[in-house]
């Protein structure tokens, strides 16, 4: 280098090299930085709205008009039963996205950069969660709007809907950890999605989202009764449509609480160990 360094030290390089190092930011500031990234993703990849909203819209329309009469006597009666369940299904299915995004980031080496920064180690995950929460709120709002157009009426009004959406965000947050862990362990994003749906499909269908469990065999009813998806759906129906008990809401919150307590430390361990 010495005999070859014929390049003068240009002003641009001096500017680059002589920057004053800012004070180390707080954990919250780090998390907000990653949250901003999640928001930018919505701006630059608007097609993801199509992904997150289309299948629940199809489910709502198909089930309401094709099976509604058979299950509940009329399409409008069935919609009243189905819509809170579809909201739960939407949020649970969409919780796969963070894991896929994480797997992509790891695959591309982006997380190696994040990991070599002196930041709060959980901040990148907080950013994923911000993206999740936004996704759940946006998808939930769109599905609810379509429901309202089709004739769904939340008897508890705005407070019920707000409480219901808070519950949805909580369940999405809890399930999100499952796919973040999978995203950390599995290298290919599509495998994360396939594995995710392999787990989620039985959980979502063997629940009280679409049909009354009373028509199912006894062994399946036993599973449906304790399925966290059923518990959440029951609580959400109560919160939005009336008649929710504190016990129902508490039961619905067990799954996200347990998932977070178990999987958040596991996530951190897997992440730091890689």
């Amino acid at each position, binding site marked *: 280098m010495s005999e070859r360094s014929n390049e003068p030290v240009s002003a641009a390089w001096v500017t680059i090299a002589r920057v004053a190092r800012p004070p180390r930011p707080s954990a919250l*500031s780090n998390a907000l930085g990653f949250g901003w990234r999640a928001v930018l993703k919505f701006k630059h990849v608007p097609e993801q709205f199509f992904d997150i909203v289309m299948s629940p819209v199809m489910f709502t329309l198909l089930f309401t008009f094709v099976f509604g009469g058979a299950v509940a006597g009329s399409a409008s009666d069935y919609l009243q039963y189905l819509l809170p369940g579809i909201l739960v299904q939407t949020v649970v299915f969409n919780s796969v996205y963070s894991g896929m995004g994480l797997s992509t980031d790891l695959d591309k080496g982006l997380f190696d950069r994040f990991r070599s920064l002196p930041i709060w180690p959980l901040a990148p995950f907080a950013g994923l969660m911000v993206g999740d929460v936004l996704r759940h709120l946006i998808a939930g709002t769109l599905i609810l709007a379509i429901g309202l157009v089709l004739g769904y009426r939340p008897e508890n009004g705005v407070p019920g809907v707000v409480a219901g959406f808070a519950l949805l965000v909580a369940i999405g947050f809890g399930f999100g950890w499952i796919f973040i862990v999978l995203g950390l362990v599995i290298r290919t994003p599509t495998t994360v999605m396939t594995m995710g749906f392999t787990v989620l499909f039985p959980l979502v269908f063997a629940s009280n989202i679409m049909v009354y469990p009373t028509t199912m065999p006894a062994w399946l009813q036993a599973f449906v009764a304790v399925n966290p998806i059923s518990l959440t759906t029951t609580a959400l129906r109560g919160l939005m449509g009336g008649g929710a008990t504190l016990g129902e809401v508490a039961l619905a919150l067990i799954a996200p609480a347990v998932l977070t307590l178990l999987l958040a430390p596991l996530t951190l361990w897997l992440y730091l160990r890689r």
Partner: protein
Amino acid sequence: MPPGGLTGRVIRANDTAIMTDTIAVTSLPAGVASAGAPAVFARGLTKRFGAVTAIDRVDLEVPHGTIFAILGPNGAGKTTLMRMLATLARPDAGAATVMGHDLLTAPGEVRGCIAMTGQFASLDEDLTGRENLVLLARLWGFRGRAAWARADDLLAAFDLADAARRQVRTYSGGMRRRLDIAASLVVTPGLLFLDEPTTGLDPKARQGVWRMIRGLASSGVTILLTTQYLEEADQLAARIAVIDHGRKIAEGTSRELKAATGSGFLHVTLADTGQLEAARGQLARLLGAPVQHSPEGGALSGPVASAVEANRVLGALTAAGIEIAGFSMGSPSLEEVFFALTGNAEAAPEEGGR
């Protein structure tokens, strides 16, 4: 680390204890981490993946303010060595200080003074170039407008101002590479790791990246880069460590490495490549040393002591019926150095540039 175990021990370069496989991971004594320490000071670094020893007791000393190259073929362990020094992989044995901080006991402090640009662009393809840099500036603690200003300074220095508002997925390979290096400089590191900075770039883009690396070094940043291109190490680095199969097999300036192989090298070009094997055998016997041939075909080379000896060898070759199209004497190329060090032509890195 064994509790209270080896922390007080002074580790010297030729301390035989650290050359054994059984050594536990230790931390260097505080004295080594003092102000006079080099940018990187590593002793006996070892990393195993299962039964495979990826890095085998490597010692490294990188002086401040220089460009230092780790040269080796694919799979030699260059990336693993760099990832260990950048706190991304934990050594199984050995010890190191990076910018005066102990790699094992103070990884956070190490991260505070280094930056690493990996082999594959670690950028968010969905975001624009500018947003990528602003995100990193915010993570480093630049607030509000200062984050955007820092991003714009970097984009200007790396000739990316015109592409600042485009999504990274639309960038060419050279642009990504430059943005990736810029992303490592949001806060100027004392030490910058560059893992194969020009692999996969066309010659023009490669020149651009070299110019950036020289510019950075001239502003005082210590740079540790890995490369499989001899030309790159030769062009950029003040010192070169040659790595093969996880071991450091040589280290020095490009000139020293060439000198260590032997002052003189005889290069012979054959008129008929059909005579290659015969000529090779003859030449090896006459020189009394291993002979290598260039991958292109009809050229052989080997160490020779003097012009008189070269003359004798050429005469004997011709007498044996080998037709010679041309010959020359000179110092060995880095490729020949590498061959002489590894004794394995297949493992020799390809010549840079393409």
